[in-house]
C-alpha cells in the first residue's frame, strides 16, 4: 500500500515537473537606431490570455525622448506615451499581432538610439516542445525521490539567474544612456569653449578697429 502511494507521488511529481518546464517566459531585447523624422514599428504575435510587457529607454539623441504607442490586433491603441525618455507597459493579450511603434517625427535633425525589452508570459499552450533536449539525455539518475527535489531547486535557480540576466540588460541600458550623455557633454564643452574664445578675440579686434575708424573719418567733417 505504501509502495503504491510512493509510486503515485512519484508520477504526480514527474507530471508537475514536466508542466513546470513547459510554461515558459520568452523575452528578447533589441537596441536600434531611429533616424530623424522616422517612425519604426515592430510586431509581435500573441495568444489569448498571455501577457506582454514592454519596457523601453532612449539611450542617445538630443532630448533623449521619443513617442511610443502600442496597439492591439483590432487596431485599438492600448498604451501611448508622448516624448518620454523611458516607459513600461503591460497588457493582457488577445489572439493576433500586437504592433508597437517608436515615433521620432517631431525631431528633424537628431537620430535616436532606442532600447526595448519584450517580456512574454504564458505564451505556451502546452503543445510545443521547448526543451527537446530531453530526448537526447542518457541514462537515469539514482535516488529518484531526492532527485525531484534537486530538480525543483535547480529549476528555480535557473529562473532566478534568467531574471538576473534581464536586470543586467536593463542596467546596461541605463549605463549606456548615461555614458552617451556624458560623451555629448564633453564634446559640447570643447566646442563651445573654443567658439567662445574665437568670438572673444574677434569681438575685441572689431571693437578696436571701429573706435579707430570713428576718429579717422572725422577728418573729412572738420572744417
Amino acid at each position, binding site marked *: 500500500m505504501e509502495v503504491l502511494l510512493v509510486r503515485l507521488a512519484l508520477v504526480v511529481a514527474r507530471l508537475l515537473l514536466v508542466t513546470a518546464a513547459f510554461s515558459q517566459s520568452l523575452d*528578447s531585447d*533589441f*537596441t*536600434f*537606431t531611429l533616424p530623424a523624422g522616422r517612425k*519604426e*514599428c*515592430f*510586431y*509581435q*504575435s500573441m495568444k489569448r490570455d498571455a501577457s506582454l510587457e514592454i519596457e523601453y529607454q532612449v539611450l542617445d539623441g538630443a532630448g533623449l525622448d521619443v513617442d511610443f504607442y502600442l496597439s492591439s490586433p483590432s487596431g485599438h491603441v492600448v498604451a501611448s506615451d508622448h516624448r518620454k525618455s523611458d516607459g513600461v507597459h503591460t497588457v493582457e493579450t488577445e489572439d493576433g499581432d500586437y504592433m508597437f511603434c517608436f515615433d521620432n517625427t517631431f525631431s528633424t535633425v537628431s537620430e535616436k*538610439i532606442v532600447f526595448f525589452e*519584450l517580456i*512574454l508570459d504564458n*505564451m505556451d499552450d502546452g503543445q*510545443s516542445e*521547448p526543451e*527537446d*533536449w*530531453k*530526448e*537526447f*539525455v*542518457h*541514462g*537515469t*539518475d539514482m535516488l529518484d525521490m531526492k*532527485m525531484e527535489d*534537486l*530538480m525543483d531547486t*535547480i*529549476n528555480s*535557480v*535557473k529562473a532566478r*539567474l*534568467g531574471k*538576473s*540576466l534581464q536586470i*543586467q540588460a536593463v*542596467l*546596461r541600458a541605463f*549605463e*549606456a544612456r*548615461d*555614458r552617451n550623455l*556624458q560623451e555629448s*557633454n*564633453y564634446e559640447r*564643452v570643447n566646442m563651445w*569653449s573654443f567658439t*567662445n*574664445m574665437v568670438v*572673444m*578675440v574677434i569681438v*575685441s579686434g572689431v*571693437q*578696436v578697429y571701429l*573706435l*579707430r575708424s570713428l*576718429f579717422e573719418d572725422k577728418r573729412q567733417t572738420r572744417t
Partner: protein
Amino acid sequence: QATLFLLSLSASLVSALYFHIGETEKKCFIEEIPDETMIIGNYRTQLYDKQKEEYLPATQGLGMFVEVKDPDEKVIMSRQYGSEGRFTFTSHTPGEHQICLHSNSSKFALFAGGMLRVHLDIQVGEHTNNYAEIAAKDKLTELQLRVRQLVEQVDQIQKEQNYQRYREERFRQTSESTNQRVLWWSIIQTLILVAIGFWQMRHLKSFFEAKKLV
C-alpha cells in the same frame, strides 16, 4: 543533426518579433556585449502577395545582406544569405556591435510596392548554446545537463559584470576629463579676457596720444 537544426530554427522564430523593411532600407540593431561572446541571429522573410492579400514566404532569389561592425567601426562580417537564414559571429573586443540588415533586391518592382516582412531573433551568449547537442555529445543525464546550464548562465553573468566594471571605469575617466576641462577652459578664458582688456586699453591710449586728443 539536420532535424535538430530545423527544430531549433523554427521554434525560435514562431513567436519572434517581426518588422517591415522597404527595398532600399537598411535596419540596424546594436548589441552591446563583452568579448568572446557568441551571437546567433535567425531571420525569416515573407513577401506580400497582392493576389492572395497576405504575406507568403519570399521567393528564392530574394536574400538579405547582413553586415556586422565591431565597436571600432570595422566590418567583421558582411555576407549575403537567402530568404531564410542564420548568421553567427563571436566578439573579440567588448563594446557596441552593430548588426545591419538590408535586402539584396536590385529589381525595384520585386516588392510590388509593398514591404518585406522580416522575422528576427537574436540570441546572445549562453542562449546560443545548443543543449541538445551538448547532452548528446557528452552523454549527460538530465541533472548534469541542468547543472551545466546553470554554470553557463553564471559564467555569462560574471562576464557581463566584468565588462560593466570596464565600462564604468571609462565612464568615470570621461567624467573626470570633462570636469577638468571645464575648469581649465574657464581659467584660460578669464586670463584671455583680462589680457585682451589690457591690450585694448593700452593700444587705444597710445592711439589717442598719437592723435593728440589726450
